[in-house]
């Protein structure tokens, strides 16, 4: 929900998703062009600043959303740094590989900040419309739309069911909790089934015959913003290429 909150309330909410998409793409390219860990870190810092300073994404939210992927990145870095010798069972620190490992990890970090920039500044409907422009298969997009909406409907349903169960001491003991959880999941399965039937009727009632089509949103100063983002993105790549 933090991602959602930031995506809808940041300063660049009304900036065209194309502009933000181009900047993200350039960020990823720049991360791959980075010749050294320092250069990759420079990309990461630049993009994070764009999100925190430019789009005014609250620092706390940024850190909270970045924490889980950073944890994965740290775990991968650690597992790359050590190797297991099966012949003489021992764990070795791969000292000679350290520059390569740091390079890979700093690149991943820069890519991560690029994707964070997009997700924290762009609401999912805008990302979907961007993907539609990029000719992503319609079925995939339809699934994304349905999953996004259903997520909120079902989470509300889960909360209501848990409240109703708790009100009748459904979670009073560990044994009760397990039973209640089982019933919750069984009930949810039925709800999903019923909801899908209702949804089918609802889309048919509005003349749908297959693909979901929606009106694209309008963004003010779209061309100017695309130009700014493309210029800054390309400059970032050129800087990386020049210093590598």
């Amino acid at each position: 929900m933090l991602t959602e909150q930031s995506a809808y309330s940041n300063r660049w909410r009304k900036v065209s998703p194309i502009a933000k998409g181009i900047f993200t793409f350039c960020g990823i390219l720049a991360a791959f062009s980075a010749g050294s860990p320092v250069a990759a870190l420079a990309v990461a810092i630049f993009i994070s600043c764009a999100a925190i300073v430019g789009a005014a994404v609250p620092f706390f939210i940024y850190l909270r959303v970045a924490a889980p992927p950073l944890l994965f990145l740290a775990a991968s870095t650690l597992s790359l740094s050590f190797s297991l010798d099966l012949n003489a069972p021992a764990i070795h620190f791969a000292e000679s590989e350290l520059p390569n490992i740091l390079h890979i990890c700093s690149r991943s970090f820069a890519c991560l900040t690029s994707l964070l920039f997009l997700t924290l500044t762009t609401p999912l409907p805008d990302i979907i419309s961007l993907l539609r422009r990029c000719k992503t298969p319609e079925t995939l997009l339809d699934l994304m739309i349905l999953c996004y909406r259903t997520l909120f409907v079902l989470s509300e349903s889960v909360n209501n069911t848990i409240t109703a169960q708790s009100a009748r001491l459904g979670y009073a003991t560990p044994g009760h909790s397990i039973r209640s959880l089982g019933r919750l999941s069984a009930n949810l399965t039925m709800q999903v089934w019923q909801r899908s039937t209702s949804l089918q009727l609802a889309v048919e009632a509005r003349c749908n015959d297959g693909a979901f089509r929606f009106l694209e949103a309008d963004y003010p100063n779209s061309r100017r913003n695309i130009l700014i983002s493309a210029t800054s993105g390309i400059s970032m790549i050129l800087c990386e290429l020049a210093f590598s």
Partner: protein
Amino acid sequence: MNEAIISLADVSYRYPDGTDALTNCSIKITQASKTAVMGANGAGKTTLFMHLNSLLRPDGGKLLYRRDPFDYSRTGLRDIRSKIGLVFQNPDNQLFSACVREDVSFGPMNLGLPESEVRLRVEEALKAVGMQETSDKPVHNLSYGQKKRVCIAGVLAMRPEVLVLDEPMAGLDTLMQMELTAILDQLQSEGMTIVIATHDIDFAYGWADEVLVMQNGRLLAGGLPQEVLNSSEVQMELGGKPFVAEITSSLALIGIDLRDKGKLPVSRSELLLAIGDYSFIQRRT
């Protein structure tokens, strides 16, 4: 009297589980009228509405739009669903796209209209339900009442001739009910036929031009609310009498006749006005 815009002749429908939801049901809905469909739970109101939008096809009998039988071919379905719009009872079942504007644009986009026309219709529909300010909001951040309005906008954007609403007042607070009633009255004054399912006898008594009472999948009574809702058979079926009618008949018993030019008050506001007028006349004489 306007002609019938939708007619059902001996329509029957049985659900796959064997439940008879409609049995030889014959109904007429008058063009540009405000029709309230009433009946106990399970009387067949929702099934009837799903027939009006061609979501269900009758097992027997036929439905007519003006004088033409419903056409269940691909183009026929598109035609009937664009003319008769259905708003579901639970907004969460109807709204499925991420943001308000997108959801409202879904119907007109399905009609294959050009983008400029869709944009115009979406703005018009959002304006009609007073939701322009929230058009960029995600659907899950809306209140229940706002979701209901978006549902109506989503159907209005298809510019139907008949708007069918399944229990639109359910779950709304009094203020929102009044606002929704004002929206429906405005649409009806522009020539749209409004059909709603309701359990609220007082609302139907004051608002509707015609009331249809369903019982076990068929029409029990239909006609003017003052006639239908004052019949003892209907009152027995619905489990109550209109409050305004009860008061006026009680007052008549003690010699107070609130009839104004032969017409009895039908809503609370008319009742209060009639009582005020009566006491004013009494004081003067």
